[in-house]
């Protein structure tokens, strides 16, 4: 009897040891590799969430864009590591005097992954596809298109305006001419939007890309979007194993630009932040995004490469002028003077963060160096509150404690410090924590229930309209629904100014007025979001727009 028990115990131990041992051996073989960085191998990056699908036009979030950017190209792109525009699928571009007619000279000899040629007809097919998209389900998912072009051939949304897009003509294989109904300052920057990537017309047709079907309270996307995304990018689609949470992309040997150095790119979806970090430490993934500020130093000390992206974002303290007390400019200025932003940056800012004086980074056209600045001055804040008769002010301060954003890695701590500063000048603060998707966005952006809130933005492309135009170009519940028409008009005018010098001057004036006359929000900081890779990784170029292309990456074999 004893013998049998012992045998059973030994058998169990043996099976366990076999499993651990065999897998351990596999691991040892992986660990045993060392040497020079060279081409080949696999680069594994940890994603934080499922992509929605791979059809660029129906996506607007970073987790979907990460794989899409490896498979698709845009007409215009950014110089690696900067927000500066350079040629993508278009080698050059120009617009006429009116700013309405854009001519793109296209790169020759480029092929889509399915072997079909990239040419002007393909470019126009894509623009026409977006403009003519039918159905509420499809249109409701084209966030960036809507933001850029403002309408469709037939709008499904009530209140949507006329589209900026008019037509696209293929003059010859290498020349596409885009005609707009009016000039828009977002261009040419917006041509670099990942959503506006150029897809293979043949594949779009073959895999029924335009069919977004509504089923009850959800949508189903096409085979193109899920299984056959075909672009011109440095990687081709290998598959999305949803059971394992792995997206596999393969090197495109025919890529027109710098060919990928690794044979395979795997994006492993790991939703828990702590687990992503542990996988990095275990060496099973080569890179993670957006480490928590508290982990940065430890990771760097452990030998990981913590690469700061140049800051291309803004964190602001929004002020809702629906509260009559906050309509008084002196009260808003008092709030600005009350904040010790320098101390906040030093104590809670990610490495490389800096105090923001304007609501956009200084690398964006129209940044005015001479705006009114609000140095920390609690006495002045108290005096302004007294002058405005707002000495016993009580404000509801909304913040989302449950998320980290590239511009806001630690909302709870940021709130605490800002609230303390405000209390110090006599403003009573009621902190209102609301989950990001459990009331914060609704209460702040739809209903405007707050008095103060923290929020921010990461730029999509290098244009002032993408920062201040987005926030203050129209009435929003976030800042109070009253008609701040002079602000809206000034922004519309700046956005519609065609000549470069005039545009620069107009935006500079907008920034000056935002700081001194309107002050709808207090800029807090620009924070560089980091990306972390193991020491075996070479060639990763961090992008201020989080627009990393992994074709430059190699992994030591």
């Amino acid at each position, binding site marked *: 009897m004893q013998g049998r028990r012992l045998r059973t115990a030994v058998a169990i131990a043996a099976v366990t040891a*076999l499993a*651990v041992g065999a897998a351990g051996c596999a691991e040892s073989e992986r660990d045993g590799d060392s040497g020079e960085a060279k081409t080949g191998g696999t680069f594994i990056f940890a994603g934080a969430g499922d992509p929605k699908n791979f059809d660029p036009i129906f996506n607007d979030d970073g987790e979907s864009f990460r794989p899409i950017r490896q498979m698709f190209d845009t007409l215009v792109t950014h110089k690696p590591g900067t927000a500066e525009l350079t040629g993508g699928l278009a080698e050059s571009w120009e617009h006429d005097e009116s700013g309405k007619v854009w001519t793109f000279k296209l790169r020759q000899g480029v092929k889509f992954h399915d072997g079909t040629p990239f040419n002007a007809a393909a470019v126009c097919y894509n623009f026409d596809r977006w403009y003519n998209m039918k159905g509420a389900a499809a249109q409701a998912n084209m966030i960036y298109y809507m933001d850029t072009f403002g309408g469709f051939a037939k709008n499904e*949304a*009530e209140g949507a305006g006329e589209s900026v897009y008019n037509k696209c003509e293929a003059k010859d294989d290498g020349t596409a001419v885009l005609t707009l109904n009016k000039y828009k300052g977002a261009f040419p920057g917006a041509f670099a939007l990942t959503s506006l990537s150029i897809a293979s017309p043949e594949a779009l047709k073959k895999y029924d890309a335009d069919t977004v079907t509504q089923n009850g309270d*959800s949508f189903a996307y096409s085979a193109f979007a899920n299984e056959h995304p075909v672009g011109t990018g440095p990687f081709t689609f290998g598959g999305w194993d949803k059971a*394992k949470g792995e997206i596999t992309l393969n090197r495109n040997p025919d890529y027109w630009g710098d060919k990928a150095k690794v044979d395979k790119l795997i994006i492993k979806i790991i939703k828990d932040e702590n*687990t992503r970090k542990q996988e990095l430490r275990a060496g099973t993934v080569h890179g993670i995004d957006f480490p928590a500020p508290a982990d940065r130093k430890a990771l760097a000390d452990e030998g990981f490469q913590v690469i700061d992206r140049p800051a291309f974002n803004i964190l602001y303290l929004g002020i809702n002028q629906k509260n009559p007390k906050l309509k008084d400019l002196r009260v808003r200025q008092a709030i600005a003077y009350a904040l010790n932003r320098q101390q906040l940056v030093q104590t809670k800012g990610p490495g490389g963060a800096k105090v923001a004086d304007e609501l956009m980074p200084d690398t964006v056209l129209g940044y005015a160096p001479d705006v009114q600045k609000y140095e920390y001055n609690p006495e002045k804040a108290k005096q302004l509150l007294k002058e405005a008769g707002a000495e016993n002010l009580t404000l509801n301060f909304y913040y989302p404690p449950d998320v980290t954003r590239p511009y806001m890695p630690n909302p709870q701590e940021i709130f605490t410090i800002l609230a303390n500063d405000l209390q110090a000048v006599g403003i009573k603060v009621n902190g209102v924590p609301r989950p990001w998707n459990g009331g914060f966005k609704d209460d702040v952006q739809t209903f405007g229930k707050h008095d103060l809130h923290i929020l921010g933005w990461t730029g999509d492309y290098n244009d002032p309209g993408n920062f201040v135009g*987005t926030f203050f170009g129209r009435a929003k519940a976030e800042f109070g629904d009253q008609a701040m028409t002079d602000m809206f008009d000034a922004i519309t005018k700046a956005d519609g100014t065609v000549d470069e010098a005039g545009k620069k001057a107009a935006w500079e004036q907008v920034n000056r007025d935002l700081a001194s006359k309107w002050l709808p929000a207090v800029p807090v900081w620009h924070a560089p979001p980091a990306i972390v890779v193991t020491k075996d990784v070479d060639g990763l170029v961090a992008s201020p727009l989080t627009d990393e292309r992994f074709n430059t990456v190699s992994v030591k074999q």
Partner: protein
Amino acid sequence: MLRVIVRRLLQLVVTLIALSALIFIWLRNLPGGPVDALLGERATPETRALLTKALGYDQPIHVQYGKFMQRILTGDFGNSIRTGDPVIEVIGRAFPATVELALAAMIVAVGLGIPLGYLAARWRGRALDHLTVVGTLLGISIPIFFLGYLLKDVFTQNIHWFPPSGRVGIGLDNTNITGFFVLDSLLTREFDATADALWHLILPAVTLATIPLAVIVRMTRASVLDVLNEDYVRTAEAKGLRHRTIRGRHILRNALLPVVTTIGLQTGALLSGAVLTEKVYNWGGLGTLITDSITGSRDYPVLQALILLAALVFVVVNLLVDLSYAFIDPRVRVR
């Protein structure tokens, strides 16, 4: 027996209908929602309104519920709001992961729990008994997510015996037939993949097994102690029956009845434990799906189907437990 089954099945239908209404109304009254979750900071009010309309959230809740029930009755649970995949497909992918984990946890819990409980009872008052009592108390009291993170930290970050997360190694080219990775790799004779899948399974299974293991040990110990004092055991010993026969036929068989009930209840409870365990180990099963559907994209269709499925599993498992009484205890059959 047939009447019992029919009655229980009718109860099941009523339970599920009531539950579906509750979930439906509750989800739609939560702050935030899929529209917010789907749209980032960039959406215009027009797009927001269009999406609300396109998803049908602008209609009165009873209309929405009516449509929902219509679809459910035709077996259509809709599509995931996040990825657009049919809900059945999404759940079908996650289901084997959770079952594989739960089965492994149950094998650990039952395989260790019954012998340990039995030995503790047999050697009552001795060191093993004391150790078992303290150990099970610890097992029941330790929060599962804490244990998960603790085990993970020790075994994956410090001594590197196990991988931190996932069901198989990243990039492993294993064949997926049923979604049960261990089974699939055995079927296809990809033994490297079997070892890899088992290697990934051990820590999550041990984590998830902790509470059921502790409960089973305690229940077995208490039950065996009760039975040991029964007259028939004394009689059997007096009759000079072999210890093996007394242990197997008289003690364990009688003592196991409440233990089987416990196992049934614990199997249902494993689902809630799986939510935390899967989160810790990025397991990709139903637990992960539930948390993602609530906290991430507010994926109502997935969430609704999942809660209904969980209720269904719970009720069916308990029905099976009731039926197994008849198998273990002939008196139930007679009654």
